[in-house]
């Protein structure tokens, strides 16, 4: 039973990684850039949601919707100001800009909301489903996160494979120049990608802080890095890969803590990552082709 409980802890941690990883992988798949500011957009989303729910006492789900709107706008502004002028620049310059953006957001949050940690009110309460006479418990937030992950994954996959905008995204991902020649507005398509990615970040922020309720300006950055690892693990650019990678990372982390050493869990996690990348350089579900979405 302990084993199952650890497994569930792993899944609940992993589902959080997964939902963050979805944002990373989607932006990477289409814009071919690592948006390191993603973790910090998550933090902004969590703060917006926190203020909506804790200060203005709005319905938690309304709070999430407001956070999504704010983050979507923020994502588009960031893209417009920081990334769009660098569209033709080497990818290293864009990467550095993204890191700069990440610090900028963190420090702005520090000025606005101070470094005092806040405790996030859970959007679905702190209850749990009890199974086997209470031996096994799955918290509501874990269940919600997994459902949210699956829904988002399904919607994203449908959006990208069925809609016209999705088609444009796939075209941009494959060859920006050719897509432009075919009459696709590449800039608008990439902006759209950022908008969606940032909207997802708001959801991830609300779920992350509901599960692990301390909220600080640096809240997003470390889970962001872990989620990025998860995205690479699952095959960056692949949406189901991000989901799988996130869950596996969470489970491996918990099992490493429980059965190997609580001090070495990160070493084990990254050791597994190295082994996976040696065997499958594109990640678990990544394809070695140009098309990654």
């Amino acid at each position, binding site marked *: 039973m*302990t084993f199952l*409980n*650890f497994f569930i*802890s792993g899944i*609940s*941690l992993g589902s*959080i990684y997964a939902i963050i990883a979805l944002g990373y992988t989607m932006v990477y798949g289409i814009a071919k850039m690592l948006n390191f500011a993603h973790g910090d957009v998550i933090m902004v989303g969590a703060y917006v949601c*926190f203020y909506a729910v*804790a200060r203005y006492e709005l319905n938690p789900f309304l709070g999430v919707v407001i956070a999504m709107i704010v983050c979507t706008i923020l994502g588009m502004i960031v893209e417009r100001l920081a990334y769009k002028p660098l569209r033709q620049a080497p990818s290293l310059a864009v990467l550095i800009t993204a890191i700069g953006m990440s610090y900028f957001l963190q*420090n702005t949050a*520090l000025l606005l909301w*101070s*470094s*005092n*940690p*806040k*405790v*996030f*009110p859970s959007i679905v309460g*702190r209850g*749990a489903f009890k199974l086997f006479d209470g031996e096994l*418990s799955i*918290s509501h937030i874990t269940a919600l996160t997994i459902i949210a992950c699956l829904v988002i994954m399904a919607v994203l996959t449908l959006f990208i494979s069925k809609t016209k905008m999705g088609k444009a995204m796939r075209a941009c991902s494959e060859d920006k120049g050719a897509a432009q020649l075919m009459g696709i507005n590449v800039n608008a398509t990439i902006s759209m990608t950022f908008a969606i990615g940032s909207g997802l970040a708001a959801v991830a922020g609300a779920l992350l802080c509901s*599960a*692990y*309720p*301390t909220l*600080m*300006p*640096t809240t997003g950055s*470390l*889970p962001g*890095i*872990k989620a990025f690892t998860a995205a690479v693990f699952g095959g960056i650019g692949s949406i189901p890969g991000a989901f799988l990678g996130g869950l596996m990372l969470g489970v491996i*982390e*918990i099992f490493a*803590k*429980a059965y190997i050493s*609580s*001090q070495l*869990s*990160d070493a084990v996690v990254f050791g597994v990552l190295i082994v996976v990348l040696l065997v499958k350089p594109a990640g678990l579900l990544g394809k070695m082709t140009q098309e990654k979405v």
Partner: protein
Amino acid sequence: MKKILVCALLVLAMSATAFGAAFKIGGTGPLTGGAAIYGTAAMRGAQIAAEEINAMNIDVKFDLRYEDDTHDAEKAVNAYNALKDWGMQISLGSVTSKPAEATAAENFADRIFALTPSASSAAVTEGKDNVFQMCFVDPNQGTASAQYIGEKKLAKKVAVIWKNDDVYSKGVRDTFVENAGKHGLEIVSETAFADGNDTDFSVQLTDAKNKGAELVFLPMYYQPASLILAQAQAMGYAPKWFGIDGMDGILTMEGFDKSLAEGVMLLTPFNADAKDEKTQKFVKKYQEKFGEIPNQFAADGYDCVYAYCQALTQAKATPDMSAEDLCGKMIEQFTTMTFNGVTGDNVRWMKNGEVTKDPKGMVIKNGAYVGLD
């Protein structure tokens, strides 16, 4: 006429050095970044003390300046150099342990006396005759906690959860584990976490629970501790909890469910609810100025400046002295004087720079700290 003018100027110049000038006192601390809560608090505490002293009718005046080190050793040395260029005569070291280890080495090399408010790692003062601490050194907290738990017979079987990438947590944990046996404690479970995997504690808590720990010792700051308390409640584990000074602040977290911390015990030098006049005055002023209850870091910063004031007055030091002369006088004073502040009465310093004062045992009851003894 000319002579009178020259004389007047001379008198003016002399009085400026003798009465108008102030001791340049500088410190570094994280004013931005993840640890900013500690740096900002210490700086604000020091500011209040400096303002109070400057308003008093005494010879000692302070010109206080804080530089940001973002809890980074390299930036702390840059910040220290900026302060040195400004003309710093005495130093408040750094607020957090990692940067303080770096700046303390500079203080030692430059012969600028330092009294750090809160950098508690043993390496800060080790081998340096002119670096002193206002807070307990980490190893002492571990020893004191083990002794306290043992003497008060709070538990026999103890679990320790600590943060293995943090010198503060490791320092306390090491001496706690070392001394636990002496005081009749059996450590049944010992687990760790680090930056980046400090969100999920189910494994650590399950281990402590399965091995029957009656008390869980948490040598860490309060953010991870708040998660541990919440997750323990969710899994229905209710041991006794025992924290150290880093736990202070848990009640001021916005939105924190105070019932989670009910019964948490901690050793801390400062209690914002204490009824004595000094503490009340400080807390009131801090609240008026910054809109929040001061934590232990703010109190440490406040005490540092007052301790300097006492030492400088007793040594009859003047602001025109060089940093090196002041350094010698301060070493002499700090190793002999007794100081009463908001973080404790009868505070004394040993030759190695460590402080001795009584830790206060506190327990959280109905959402407030109450003295244990």
